[in-house]
């Protein structure tokens, strides 16, 4: 799991003004809320610096969020503005929590989890098709998946599995060959395009194409898969009846749990009457993928490229693994950000440092939640190590480890 990225965390429509929402991303509890004054979204660490209560259980007072335990009031920058028990005293410098930059784009709320200054942040993926409501009809959905998000991501961009896992939906098991790829890459994404054999048309489309059911001789269907770091994918299928684009974001709740949020666009059957079917189709595909991904061992991606056997049609995944290894080497893995609160808040949690920690160096000593590993957490690691299920992504600090090319 990586910090220093924009994470799509919620559909814009699903966050109303005034009601805070608790979310968990990268193992860290966060609270998001929409400010009454201008409707913009705030994202804070969900850990009150006083005694560690969850701010998300509190209420809004103006644009501030009030801790439900002792009523400390936090503004959108994570600073405590009021301590009700001692209104006459000053506010301690340490009375602050991490606040994360937020952008709303492409129907989603994106939160920057990391401390990079604005100009160094990786881009938010280009999902502009989502905004083109003239051309596309959209449905959205959410799917909780008990698997590691990177396995899900790899599955999402794997073209060779469609004829087998999605037989009938858009795979054609009688013609499983994956022809030559066209590839487009940047440091932050990789798109692979191929032309696949379509399955036999079914339902409404078949009735609109009587005689079009010759399975072996139908025109090829352009299909492309794209990943954007750290966790977004796009599946595009140019069916004879129109285009299908399924954007999804695989939100790592923790190492073993992923919340998938998708926006599925279509240029055909754009009436509201077809929304239910469109949503059902995406869920069907996700369920088929879930059944396979859940059998993949080990659950977490191996660190070493050569640990699994790659063939040519795995190109897109291989690219992803290369990039993730670079990120791990750059220290962007969040495993180092497990903290234990010093002082009164005896809390163990993960807190990803926010940009303000870098922006205001004078405050360096003011952060109550420091990036310190607790003995207990290290103990748990030792246990897991003994059981042999320690995620290899945890080994970032291992000194001098050989990294095979």
């Amino acid at each position: 799991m990586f910090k220093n990225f924009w994470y799509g965390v919620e559909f814009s429509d699903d966050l109303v003004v005034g009601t805070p929402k608790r979310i968990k991303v990268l193992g860290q509890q966060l609270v998001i809320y929409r400010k009454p004054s201008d409707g913009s979204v705030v994202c804070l660490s969900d850990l009150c610096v006083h005694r560690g209560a969850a701010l998300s259980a509190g209420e809004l007072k103006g644009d501030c969020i009030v801790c439900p335990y002792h009523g400390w009031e936090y503004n959108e920058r994570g600073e405590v503005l009021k301590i009700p028990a001692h209104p006459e005293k000053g506010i301690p410098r340490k009375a602050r929590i991490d606040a994360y930059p937020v952008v709303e784009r492409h129907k989603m709320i994106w939160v920057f989890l990391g401390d990079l200054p604005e100009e160094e942040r990786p881009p938010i993926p280009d999902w502009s098709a989502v905004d083109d409501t003239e051309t596309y009809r959209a449905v959205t959905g959410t799917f909780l998946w008990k698997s590691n998000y990177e396995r899900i991501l790899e599955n999402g961009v794997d073209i060779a599995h469609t004829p087998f896992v999605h037989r009938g939906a858009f795979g054609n098991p009688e013609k499983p060959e994956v022809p030559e790829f066209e590839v487009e890459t940047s440091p932050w994404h990789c798109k692979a395009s191929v032309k696949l054999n379509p399955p036999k048309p079914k339902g409404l489309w078949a009735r609109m194409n009587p005689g079009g059911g010759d399975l072996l001789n139908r025109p090829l269907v352009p299909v492309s898969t794209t990943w954007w770091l750290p966790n977004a994918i796009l599946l595009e299928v140019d069916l004879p009846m129109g285009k299908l684009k399924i954007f999804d974001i695989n939100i790592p709740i923790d190492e073993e749990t992923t919340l998938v949020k998708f926006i599925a666009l279509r240029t055909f059957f754009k009436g509201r009457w077809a929304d239910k079917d469109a949503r059902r189709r995406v869920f069907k595909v996700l369920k088929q993928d879930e059944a396979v991904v859940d059998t993949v061992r080990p659950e977490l991606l191996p660190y070493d490229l050569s640990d699994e056997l790659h063939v040519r049609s795995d190109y897109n995944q291989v690219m992803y693994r290369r990039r993730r290894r670079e990120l791990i080497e750059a220290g962007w893995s969040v495993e180092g950000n497990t903290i234990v609160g010093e002082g009164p808040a005896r809390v163990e949690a993960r807190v990803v440092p926010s940009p303000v920690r870098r922006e205001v160096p004078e405050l360096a000593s003011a952060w109550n939640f420091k990036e310190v590993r607790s003995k207990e957490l290290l103990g748990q690691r030792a246990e897991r190590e003994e059981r042999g299920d320690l995620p290899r992504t945890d080994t970032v600090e291992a000194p001098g480890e050989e990294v095979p090319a």
Partner: protein
Amino acid sequence: MSATEAESTSLSGGLCRRTWERIVHERGLVEARSASGRAFRTLVSPMSPDPVGEVRVFTAADETEPVAKLVYVGLTVRAIGLDSHMVFAFVRPDLPVPHFTLDSVQGQGSYAFHLDLIPRADLGTHLTYLDWAHAPLTPAFEEVSQRPGLSKAAIGPRQFAMMSPWMLVHRAEEAAFTGIDDAVTTYLDHWFGLLAAPVPDAVVADVADTDLSLRDARNRANIFSPDVDHVWAQVARLVGDEAMEDVRAQLLDNEVRA
């Protein structure tokens, strides 16, 4: 597949398309394609190098389906700012269920539509039929009629006499036009309701004095008569007399003539 089929994303085209696709979907209709596998008819015009429109025809999958034929006619000529889409879904001649129609037009920057269930019996003498087939649309009819941004379209009483008093026929500003989807849904839902259950005995008895098939043939001959609806003269100017007559022929009865 032709560009017109895939990319009819104009406001007027979109409304009509969503409507007929839903009917095809819910009634399980099957498309009658041309020999080349394309739309039933592709319309060409001396005014444009590209096709200016198409006729698509769908029929019942079997004889138990009450909807006998659906005809969609689309005409788009950007050069003269015409974008016209209409759909008629005809119920079997022997059933007293109204036909459904939606006409959705954009011309010279303004929008217009008509939406109706076409009566299958004389409304002045068949109150039971009227109360079953049409009267439930009254609240929707009244609500839509007084929406801002809509104004009555120019359709004379003579032409109106072939349709129902519940016909919504309006010019519309863009914002009002985009809001018509829900009225179409209300009319469609009512119509699907009529199709879903057997025709009540009281209604069957009420219209027993009407030769439904004969009346249907005569009614359709009038609705689609160039003498009644001047749109046919415009269509003829666009695609020629022969093609116009061919389009008209698709609407007069439920035959599918290649």
